[in-house]
């Protein structure tokens, strides 16, 4: 990997000092993932991650610039210096830790599986040999590729396509972060999260480029500060609660550091 060789000298570009000098923080977010990162009717970026992003920029004292990404190019957006920080429902995994630097987690999830109510999937064994829909580059894909290899994965580029495929019965079920699936079934009552959580509990963190210690440290302090100040609770109430059903409680999602 030549990627390692070049990473050290480009790091400085994104240090806290540089960002302040530049006057803008570039944040990678999702654009089609309500309620985390999406664009509402009037064209404004909103969501749990987006609110966090705005707060982070504000605390840094700079303007914010959003870069919309898909799940499978979050890492490259960082490493190619397209963004300073990723706040896009980014689950911490050991593979990812090797290529980006994660700050303290601000959310916890695990992989869930959603299926039609009239053909409910409740056990992983039911997926054997069946088509399971995932989005490229998600934790769910990773889990079903490395831990549970019996399902036949259909891999899409975006959330929009993934859910369309499920509605079209391209697969028997769809796997993604469970909190997100709860939100989705609330809008789509014919479906249910039949498997509420599989695999270990996972954490969602901001990610910065490897070696960018100044921004990493700053972000860690920021997360701690915000947690103490109850920011995430408010964020949850405003952005997530309206989307989630009764099955979910704030404590299922947010972390008390």
């Amino acid at each position: 990997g030549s990627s390692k060789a070049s990473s050290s000298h480009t790091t400085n570009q994104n240090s806290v000092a540089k960002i302040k000098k530049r006057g803008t923080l570039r944040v990678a977010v999702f654009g089609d993932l309500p309620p985390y990162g999406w664009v509402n009717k009037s064209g404004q970026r909103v969501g749990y991650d987006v609110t966090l992003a705005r707060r982070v920029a504000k605390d840094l004292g700079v303007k914010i610039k959003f870069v919309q990404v898909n799940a499978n190019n979050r890492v490259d957006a960082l490493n190619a210096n397209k963004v300073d920080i990723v706040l896009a429902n980014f689950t911490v995994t050991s593979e990812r830790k090797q290529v980006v630097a994660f700050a303290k987690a601000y959310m916890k999830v695990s992989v869930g599986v959603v299926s039609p109510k009239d053909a409910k999937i409740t056990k992983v064994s039911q997926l054997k040999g069946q088509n399971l829909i995932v989005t490229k580059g998600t934790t769910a894909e990773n889990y079903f590729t490395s831990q549970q290899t019996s399902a036949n994965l259909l891999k899409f580029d975006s959330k929009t396509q993934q859910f369309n495929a499920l509605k079209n019965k391209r697969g028997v079920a769809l796997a993604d972060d469970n909190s997100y699936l709860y939100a989705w079934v609330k809008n789509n009552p014919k479906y249910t999260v039949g498997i509420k959580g599989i695999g270990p509990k996972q954490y969602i963190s901001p990610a910065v480029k490897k070696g960018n210690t100044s921004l990493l440290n700053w972000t860690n302090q920021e997360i701690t500060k915000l947690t103490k100040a109850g920011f995430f609770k408010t964020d949850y109430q405003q952005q997530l609660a309206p989307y989630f059903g009764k099955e979910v409680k704030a404590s299922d999602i947010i972390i008390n550091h």
Partner: protein
Amino acid sequence: MAHSGIDVLTAGSNFSRLLGGLWVTVKIALIAILIGTIVGILLGILRTLPNRPLRFILRLYLEFFRIVPTVVLLFLFYYILPKQFNVNLPAETVATLVFALWVASEMSDIVRGALESVPQHQKEAGQAIGLSYWQLQRYVLIPQAWPLGLPATVNLMTRVVKTTSLLMLISVMDVINIGQQIIEANNKTAPNGVFWIYGIIFMFYFIINYPLSRWDKHLNKRRLEANH
């Protein structure tokens, strides 16, 4: 199915946002075509020179852009080259650049072909009255090659416009990306909005390309009539 979902198009600022996305798409295509055409004409002329190494290099350039699918080019220029060469351009600029380089490569071949299909005796007639190399290009070859290459150029333009649909794969807020945002944002109220959104995008592309394709047809017809 009580709800057709067509109001997705009119809700909020949805339609104007789609138009905004369309403008991004069109802008990238236009600038790329403009730059690519100019560069391509120069390269095309260079490719008719008897200089072998030069022709070989330009041929390699052409073949590279011909072989590598545009999706891959976009990834290459957006994510890999910045890492390797430490240049960092915004997504729209990268997209414009990739399309311009692609257009230039295809144009160079169109121009070369057109120049070579100007009848040999026209070139000789020009030489016979003592025209120099550039005078020959300027007064004889290029004016005659131009109508020969135009249909292929127009055809290439329609392909460029269509290929902008791949911009959704890098972080360009083109019309399809905006469309997907709208689809997700209105998922709850209008589950069938997806077809309307894709339908309108389909129409957008058609409306841009159809006149180009008519023009292409018209040019071809005129060329045929001139030939027979």
